[in-house]
Protein backbone atom coordinates (compact mmCIF):
# COMPACT_ATOMS: atom_id res chain seq x y z
CA UNK A 1 0.00 0.00 0.00
CA UNK A 2 1.52 3.38 -0.93
CA UNK A 3 1.84 5.26 2.32
CA UNK A 4 3.52 8.48 1.39
CA UNK A 5 3.45 11.33 3.81
CA UNK A 6 0.35 13.42 3.05
CA UNK A 7 2.22 16.68 3.51
CA UNK A 8 4.81 15.73 0.88
CA UNK A 9 2.20 14.41 -1.53
CA UNK A 10 0.64 17.82 -1.83
CA UNK A 11 3.49 20.24 -1.06
CA UNK A 12 6.19 18.72 -3.27
CA UNK A 13 4.35 19.59 -6.51
CA UNK A 14 3.97 23.17 -5.26
CA UNK A 15 7.72 23.34 -4.62
CA UNK A 16 8.35 22.06 -8.14
CA UNK A 17 6.11 24.83 -9.46
CA UNK A 18 7.84 27.44 -7.32
CA UNK A 19 4.39 28.35 -5.98
CA UNK A 20 3.93 30.67 -3.00
CA UNK A 21 2.03 28.61 -0.44
CA UNK A 22 1.83 28.08 3.28
CA UNK A 23 0.67 25.05 5.22
CA UNK A 24 -2.01 25.85 7.80
CA UNK A 25 -4.61 23.80 9.71
CA UNK A 26 -3.96 20.50 11.44
CA UNK A 27 -0.57 19.77 9.84
CA UNK A 28 0.70 23.18 10.96
CA UNK A 29 -0.70 22.57 14.43
CA UNK A 30 1.29 19.31 14.55
CA UNK A 31 4.48 21.24 13.73
CA UNK A 32 3.72 23.89 16.36
CA UNK A 33 1.90 21.85 18.98
CA UNK A 34 0.58 18.41 19.82
CA UNK A 35 1.29 15.42 17.59
CA UNK A 36 -1.90 13.84 16.25
CA UNK A 37 -3.25 12.22 13.12
CA UNK A 38 -5.15 14.00 10.41
CA UNK A 39 -6.51 12.96 7.05
CA UNK A 40 -6.19 16.25 5.25
CA UNK A 41 -3.69 18.95 4.52
CA UNK A 42 -4.77 22.59 4.44
CA UNK A 43 -2.77 25.03 2.38
CA UNK A 44 -3.10 28.71 1.51
CA UNK A 45 -1.96 29.32 -2.03
CA UNK A 46 -1.24 32.39 -4.12
CA UNK A 47 -3.04 31.53 -7.30
CA UNK A 48 -3.73 33.33 -10.55
CA UNK A 49 -6.07 32.09 -13.29
CA UNK A 50 -3.03 31.41 -15.47
CA UNK A 51 -1.78 28.91 -12.83
CA UNK A 52 -4.74 26.56 -13.45
CA UNK A 53 -3.00 24.57 -16.17
CA UNK A 54 0.19 24.18 -14.13
CA UNK A 55 -1.70 22.97 -11.05
CA UNK A 56 -3.68 20.46 -13.09
CA UNK A 57 -0.42 19.19 -14.61
CA UNK A 58 1.29 18.77 -11.22
CA UNK A 59 -1.63 16.75 -9.82
CA UNK A 60 -2.19 14.38 -12.78
CA UNK A 61 -5.55 12.64 -13.15
CA UNK A 62 -3.96 9.19 -12.99
CA UNK A 63 -2.93 9.86 -9.39
CA UNK A 64 -5.16 12.67 -8.14
CA UNK A 65 -8.62 14.04 -8.34
CA UNK A 66 -8.13 17.69 -9.24
CA UNK A 67 -10.99 19.96 -10.33
CA UNK A 68 -11.19 20.86 -14.03
CA UNK A 69 -9.16 23.89 -15.09
CA UNK A 70 -12.35 25.86 -15.60
CA UNK A 71 -13.32 25.37 -11.95
CA UNK A 72 -9.82 26.39 -10.85
CA UNK A 73 -10.12 29.57 -12.90
CA UNK A 74 -13.53 30.39 -11.42
CA UNK A 75 -12.22 29.85 -7.89
CA UNK A 76 -9.13 31.96 -8.56
CA UNK A 77 -11.32 34.83 -9.75
CA UNK A 78 -13.10 35.05 -6.38
CA UNK A 79 -12.07 38.11 -4.41
CA UNK A 80 -12.44 36.20 -1.14
CA UNK A 81 -12.45 32.57 0.00
CA UNK A 82 -11.62 30.81 -3.25
CA UNK A 83 -11.17 27.11 -2.54
CA UNK A 84 -10.65 23.73 -4.18
CA UNK A 85 -9.80 20.14 -3.16
CA UNK A 86 -7.22 17.73 -4.48
CA UNK A 87 -7.50 14.04 -3.49
CA UNK A 88 -4.84 11.37 -3.85
CA UNK A 89 -6.55 8.27 -5.24
CA UNK A 90 -4.19 5.65 -3.81
CA UNK A 91 -4.34 6.84 -0.21
CA UNK A 92 -7.54 8.87 0.12
CA UNK A 93 -5.54 11.82 1.47
CA UNK A 94 -7.16 15.15 0.74
CA UNK A 95 -5.79 18.66 0.44
CA UNK A 96 -7.90 21.76 0.92
CA UNK A 97 -6.43 24.63 -1.05
CA UNK A 98 -7.57 28.04 0.16
CA UNK A 99 -6.66 30.78 -2.24
CA UNK A 100 -4.88 33.62 -0.50
CA UNK A 101 -7.11 36.56 0.25
CA UNK A 102 -5.92 40.04 -0.63
CA UNK A 103 -5.79 41.30 2.94
CA UNK A 104 -3.06 42.62 5.20
CA UNK A 105 -3.08 39.61 7.55
CA UNK A 106 -2.62 37.09 4.73
CA UNK A 107 0.09 39.27 3.18
CA UNK A 108 1.88 39.40 6.54
CA UNK A 109 1.63 35.61 6.96
CA UNK A 110 2.98 34.96 3.47
CA UNK A 111 5.93 37.29 4.12
CA UNK A 112 6.65 35.59 7.45
CA UNK A 113 6.36 31.96 6.43
CA UNK A 114 8.51 29.50 8.33
CA UNK A 115 10.61 26.96 6.49
CA UNK A 116 10.69 23.44 7.86
CA UNK A 117 12.82 20.80 6.15
CA UNK A 118 11.04 17.45 6.16
CA UNK A 119 12.53 14.38 4.46
CA UNK A 120 14.82 16.65 2.47
CA UNK A 121 12.00 18.88 1.23
CA UNK A 122 11.75 22.49 2.36
CA UNK A 123 8.13 23.15 3.30
CA UNK A 124 6.51 26.55 3.92
CA UNK A 125 4.36 26.96 6.99
CA UNK A 126 2.22 29.90 8.03
CA UNK A 127 3.35 31.56 11.28
CA UNK A 128 1.60 30.06 14.34
CA UNK A 129 -0.38 33.28 14.95
CA UNK A 130 -1.99 32.94 11.51
CA UNK A 131 -2.71 29.24 12.07
CA UNK A 132 -4.42 30.09 15.38
CA UNK A 133 -6.52 32.87 13.84
CA UNK A 134 -7.60 30.47 11.10
CA UNK A 135 -8.59 27.84 13.64
CA UNK A 136 -10.57 30.38 15.65
CA UNK A 137 -12.58 31.20 12.54
CA UNK A 138 -13.12 27.52 11.73
CA UNK A 139 -14.29 26.95 15.31
CA UNK A 140 -16.74 29.84 15.04
CA UNK A 141 -18.11 28.40 11.79
CA UNK A 142 -18.16 24.69 12.59
CA UNK A 143 -17.97 24.42 16.37
CA UNK A 144 -15.48 21.55 16.34
CA UNK A 145 -13.61 21.45 19.64
CA UNK A 146 -10.55 19.99 17.93
CA UNK A 147 -9.61 23.51 16.86
CA UNK A 148 -9.52 24.75 20.45
CA UNK A 149 -7.48 21.74 21.48
CA UNK A 150 -5.01 22.39 18.67
CA UNK A 151 -4.74 26.05 19.66
CA UNK A 152 -4.20 25.15 23.32
CA UNK A 153 -1.34 22.83 22.43
CA UNK A 154 0.27 25.39 20.12
CA UNK A 155 0.17 27.97 22.90
CA UNK A 156 1.84 25.52 25.24
CA UNK A 157 4.56 24.33 22.90
CA UNK A 158 5.47 27.25 20.65
CA UNK A 159 6.17 30.89 21.37
CA UNK A 160 3.19 32.85 20.09
CA UNK A 161 2.65 36.62 19.96
CA UNK A 162 -0.62 36.63 21.90
CA UNK A 163 -1.06 40.38 21.57
CA UNK A 164 -0.92 40.05 17.80
CA UNK A 165 -3.54 37.29 17.93
CA UNK A 166 -5.75 39.36 20.28
CA UNK A 167 -5.63 42.38 17.98
CA UNK A 168 -6.60 40.38 14.92
CA UNK A 169 -9.15 38.28 16.82
CA UNK A 170 -11.00 41.51 17.60
CA UNK A 171 -10.91 42.57 13.96
CA UNK A 172 -12.08 39.13 12.77
CA UNK A 173 -14.86 38.86 15.35
CA UNK A 174 -13.47 35.85 17.19
CA UNK A 175 -12.73 37.44 20.56
CA UNK A 176 -15.03 35.10 22.49
CA UNK A 177 -13.48 32.06 20.81
CA UNK A 178 -9.99 33.39 21.61
CA UNK A 179 -10.95 33.95 25.27
CA UNK A 180 -11.86 30.29 25.53
CA UNK A 181 -8.26 29.42 24.71
CA UNK A 182 -7.18 31.10 27.92
Amino acid at each position, binding site marked *: *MPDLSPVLLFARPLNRLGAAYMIVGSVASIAYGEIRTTNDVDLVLEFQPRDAVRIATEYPAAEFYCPPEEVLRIESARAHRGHFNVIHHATGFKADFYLKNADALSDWAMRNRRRIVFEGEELSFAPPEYVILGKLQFFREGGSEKHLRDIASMLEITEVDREFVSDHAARLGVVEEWRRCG
Partner: protein
Amino acid sequence: MSHLHPAQRESLRAMTPARRLELGMQMIASARALQAAAIRAQHSDWTPEQVSAEVRRRWLYARS
Protein backbone atom coordinates in the same frame (compact mmCIF):
# COMPACT_ATOMS: atom_id res chain seq x y z
CA MET B 1 -7.41 24.67 29.09
CA SER B 2 -4.26 22.59 29.08
CA HIS B 3 -4.77 18.92 28.29
CA LEU B 4 -1.12 17.94 28.04
CA HIS B 5 0.70 16.18 30.86
CA PRO B 6 3.60 18.36 32.07
CA ALA B 7 6.10 15.70 30.97
CA GLN B 8 4.46 15.50 27.57
CA ARG B 9 4.61 19.28 27.27
CA GLU B 10 8.32 19.29 28.10
CA SER B 11 9.04 16.56 25.56
CA LEU B 12 7.18 18.40 22.84
CA ARG B 13 8.87 21.68 23.69
CA ALA B 14 12.28 20.05 23.42
CA MET B 15 11.58 18.97 19.84
CA THR B 16 12.06 21.05 16.74
CA PRO B 17 8.98 21.71 14.57
CA ALA B 18 10.52 19.36 11.98
CA ARG B 19 10.71 16.55 14.55
CA ARG B 20 7.09 17.06 15.63
CA LEU B 21 6.07 17.00 11.97
CA GLU B 22 8.06 13.82 11.43
CA LEU B 23 6.38 12.10 14.39
CA GLY B 24 2.96 13.32 13.23
CA MET B 25 3.50 11.85 9.78
CA GLN B 26 4.76 8.59 11.34
CA MET B 27 1.65 8.50 13.51
CA ILE B 28 -0.53 8.76 10.42
CA ALA B 29 1.41 5.93 8.72
CA SER B 30 1.10 3.79 11.85
CA ALA B 31 -2.62 4.48 12.15
CA ARG B 32 -3.14 3.37 8.57
CA ALA B 33 -1.04 0.23 9.04
CA LEU B 34 -2.98 -0.62 12.21
CA GLN B 35 -6.26 -0.06 10.44
CA ALA B 36 -5.14 -2.34 7.58
CA ALA B 37 -4.21 -5.04 10.11
CA ALA B 38 -7.60 -4.75 11.80
CA ILE B 39 -9.39 -5.02 8.44
CA ARG B 40 -7.30 -8.08 7.51
CA ALA B 41 -8.18 -9.70 10.84
CA GLN B 42 -11.85 -9.02 10.28
CA HIS B 43 -11.84 -10.12 6.61
CA SER B 44 -9.25 -12.87 6.30
CA ASP B 45 -10.47 -13.70 2.78
CA TRP B 46 -9.84 -10.19 1.42
CA THR B 47 -7.02 -9.55 -1.04
CA PRO B 48 -4.36 -6.90 -0.26
CA GLU B 49 -6.05 -4.70 -2.88
CA GLN B 50 -9.39 -4.96 -1.09
CA VAL B 51 -7.75 -4.11 2.22
CA SER B 52 -6.01 -1.09 0.66
CA ALA B 53 -9.26 0.06 -0.91
CA GLU B 54 -11.04 -0.13 2.44
CA VAL B 55 -8.29 1.85 4.21
CA ARG B 56 -8.45 4.45 1.46
CA ARG B 57 -12.24 4.65 1.73
CA ARG B 58 -12.14 5.08 5.50
CA TRP B 59 -9.55 7.86 5.31
CA LEU B 60 -11.26 9.66 2.49
CA TYR B 61 -14.52 9.88 4.44
CA ALA B 62 -13.04 10.17 7.91
CA ARG B 63 -13.59 13.22 10.07
CA SER B 64 -10.29 14.50 11.31
